[in-house]
């Protein structure tokens, strides 16, 4: 059926894969009609998809350095776009984003704008130039452009801090989903998630991660879009929700006016289970100051352009031109999900609060709501809670509480979709969390094995030894991440945002100025990375321990402090020390034109 090279057959291979997945969904739907239990459907969905990824990981095993670090630099534009989108969209994007929009409205939408706008910076400032450089890792660029082990080492530190913060959140998410779908305790589920992640990446490095990420993107986008379109039609809101929900948005605003936002007393709120929230903010009105919105968006944009696991995806394309276009495709594939999240939030909220809809629960009696099947299920799962604070026997808007994850996980069931959709959503969430965790674990272990072990400790190491070290590190980092994830210190979304701020504090300006400012030199870059990271971290600790902060910069936007310090110290230190030598200047010139050999190949 398939002849010739794998790369030439990609559309066919993934076409068959997508068809196969759709057939699997239909089979599960038939099995559900035939009486298969909801639990079993969930297990089938998660186990089947994870096994497929593991199979792809095994088929992509490699013993070549180029394939292990950069997938042989032959990933076509559109497929790299899909892989990047999966790499990018984490368990948080998939499970928590619609919930964030549902509860916080406009103030939260800054994340949507930031997580997409950042790609403009990636495409115009960095990706094509780093591709031309021909490096294996982000610290590889810093180390070669500025010269010296200190610069390389500092970049590895920033990369590790940012990526590790992020990866614990992702392993946590895989654990959460695996524990719900497979019905095992969280402490064990975390290691099941970890095993799946390592199966995808250990044998084939970047090559394996690339081809599993494409497969994971296909699963996660089907799992996200299918319910949104279905729910919208079912509620009679329109068959294409993105263009047709204006009436629903207006209706929510009308209901909010009618119900009003009643503030609960502290004593009442203390009875609500931890992690659940009520609707306290208007759905579509502008409820954040311009600075609050813009500062958060700016941090996410600069963070996007500094996160190494995203940047290294553009090292895998065949050329500079394809790297540039690939950024566009990445954002397009991300856009498909991000533009659907607000629609899901709208549909979810309206179906719950509109008393004229059969699914609406506000205005019903407390006893009626407590008798609903789905309410009981999600109340048991600790994601929904009602309480009759004012004792009038009817459910008011301020008496209904929900967990952020419930918007994605529970809305299909509330709208009356078959359970097969809930199984599909679990598989999608798993795909999203796994693909991001894969990319992050690989980014860290590649930096440690290539930049620390090979470039600094043992430059004479032979290929086989380098790849063994890379794999051992991969497993160790995975276990470290899982161990910390099992402790459940920080919520999923909080640590994701911190990761962006860390990356922005230490890496944004050293990367950008490395291409765009010839005069930038090694001492400047080291100062920029270390002082940026230290000051950002210090500010975070200060605000966390009760400090008042300044300029309205919060613990979610501390990257602004870090990046400002980084920029100033980098410029000042660069200017008071000697200009880079002629060879370095020539290197920057070479990076700026697409033609010719990669900079590293010339050396």
């Amino acid at each position, binding site marked *: 059926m398939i002849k010739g090279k794998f790369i030439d057959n990609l559309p066919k291979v993934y076409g068959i894969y997508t068809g196969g997945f759709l057939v699997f969904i239909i089979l599960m739907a038939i099995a559900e009609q035939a009486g298969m239990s909801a639990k079993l459907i969930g297990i089938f969905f998660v186990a089947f998809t994870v096994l497929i990824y593991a199979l792809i990981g095994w088929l992509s095993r490699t013993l070549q350095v180029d394939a292990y670090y950069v997938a042989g630099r032959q990933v076509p534009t559109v497929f790299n776009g899909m892989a990047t989108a999966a790499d990018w969209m984490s368990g948080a994007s998939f499970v928590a984003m619609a919930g964030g929009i549902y509860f916080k409205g406009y103030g939260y939408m800054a994340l949507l*704008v930031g997580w997409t706008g950042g790609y403009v910076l990636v495409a115009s400032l960095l990706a094509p130039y780093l591709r031309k450089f021909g490096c294996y890792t982000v610290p590889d660029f810093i180390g070669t452009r500025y010269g010296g082990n200190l610069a390389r080492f500092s970049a590895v530190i920033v990369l590790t801090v940012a990526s590790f913060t992020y990866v614990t959140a992702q392993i946590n998410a895989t654990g959460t989903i695996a524990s719900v779908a497979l019905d095992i305790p969280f402490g064990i589920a975390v290691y099941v998630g970890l095993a799946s992640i390592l199966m995808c990446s250990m044998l084939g490095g970047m090559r394996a991660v690339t081809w599993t990420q494409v497969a994971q993107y296909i699963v996660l986008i089907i799992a996200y879009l299918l319910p949104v379109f279905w729910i919208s039609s079912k509620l009679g809101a329109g068959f294409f929700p993105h263009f047709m929900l204006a009436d629903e948005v207006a209706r929510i605003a009308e209901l909010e006016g009618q119900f009003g936002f009643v503030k609960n007393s502290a004593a009442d709120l203390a009875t609500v289970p931890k992690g659940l929230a009520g609707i306290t903010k208007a759905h579509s009105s502008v409820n954040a100051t311009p600075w609050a919105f813009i500062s958060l968006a700016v941090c996410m944009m600069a963070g996007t352009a500094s996160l190494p696991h995203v940047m290294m995806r553009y090292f895998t394309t065949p050329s500079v031109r394809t790297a540039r276009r690939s950024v566009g495709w990445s954002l397009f594939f991300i856009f498909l999900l991000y533009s659907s999240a607000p629609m899901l939030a709208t549909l979810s909220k309206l179906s719950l609060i509109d008393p004229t809809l059969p699914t609406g629960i506000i205005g019903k009696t407390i006893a009626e709501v407590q008798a609903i099947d789905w309410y009981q299920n999600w109340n048991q799962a600790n994601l929904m809670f009602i309480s009759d604070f004012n004792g009038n026997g009817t459910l008011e808007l301020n008496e209904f509480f929900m967990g952020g994850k419930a918007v994605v996980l529970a809305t299909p069931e509330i709208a009356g979709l078959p359970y097969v959709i809930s199984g599909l959503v679990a598989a999608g969430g798993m795909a999203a969390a796994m693909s991001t965790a894969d990319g992050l674990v690989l980014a860290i272990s590649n930096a440690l094995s290539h930049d620390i072990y090979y470039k600094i400790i043992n430059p004479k190491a032979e290929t086989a030894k380098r790849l063994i070290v890379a794999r051992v590190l991969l497993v160790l980092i995975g276990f470290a991440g899982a161990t910390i994830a099992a402790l459940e210190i920080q919520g999923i979304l909080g640590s994701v945002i911190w990761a962006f701020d860390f990356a922005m504090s230490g890496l944004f300006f050293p990367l950008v100025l490395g291409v765009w400012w010839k005069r930038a030199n090694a001492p400047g870059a080291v100062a920029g990375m270390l002082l940026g990271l230290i000051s950002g971290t210090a500010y975070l600790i200060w605000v966390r321990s009760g400090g008042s902060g300044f300029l309205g910069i919060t613990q979610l936007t501390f990257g602004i402090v870090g990046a400002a310090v980084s920029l100033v110290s980098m410029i000042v230190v660069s200017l008071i020390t000697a200009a880079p030598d002629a060879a370095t200047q020539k290197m920057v010139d070479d990076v*700026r034109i697409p033609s010719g050999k990669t900079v590293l190949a010339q050396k």
Partner: protein
Amino acid sequence: MSKQEQHWEKTRNLLFITLAIWFVFSIGIFLFGAEMQESSIRPFGYPLTYWFTCQGSLAIFVILIFWFAGRQEKIDDEFGFTEREGDQ
């Protein structure tokens, strides 16, 4: 001015235009979020600021990157700096 310097100057100008458009739709318009929300311009019936955060800005970024890539390819072609087979 050498060929390479001219190429870089054009590249830099393209960067400034791209970043200016990016700035408008990621930062600029949100300085006036409250005012825009009241506007009578309502794409697909959604309030204007709400629409930009859900779809508008996001879609503009996608288009902007493809436009930028096309323009940069033209600049590279003009100076003969486009990669050829076997360059990498």
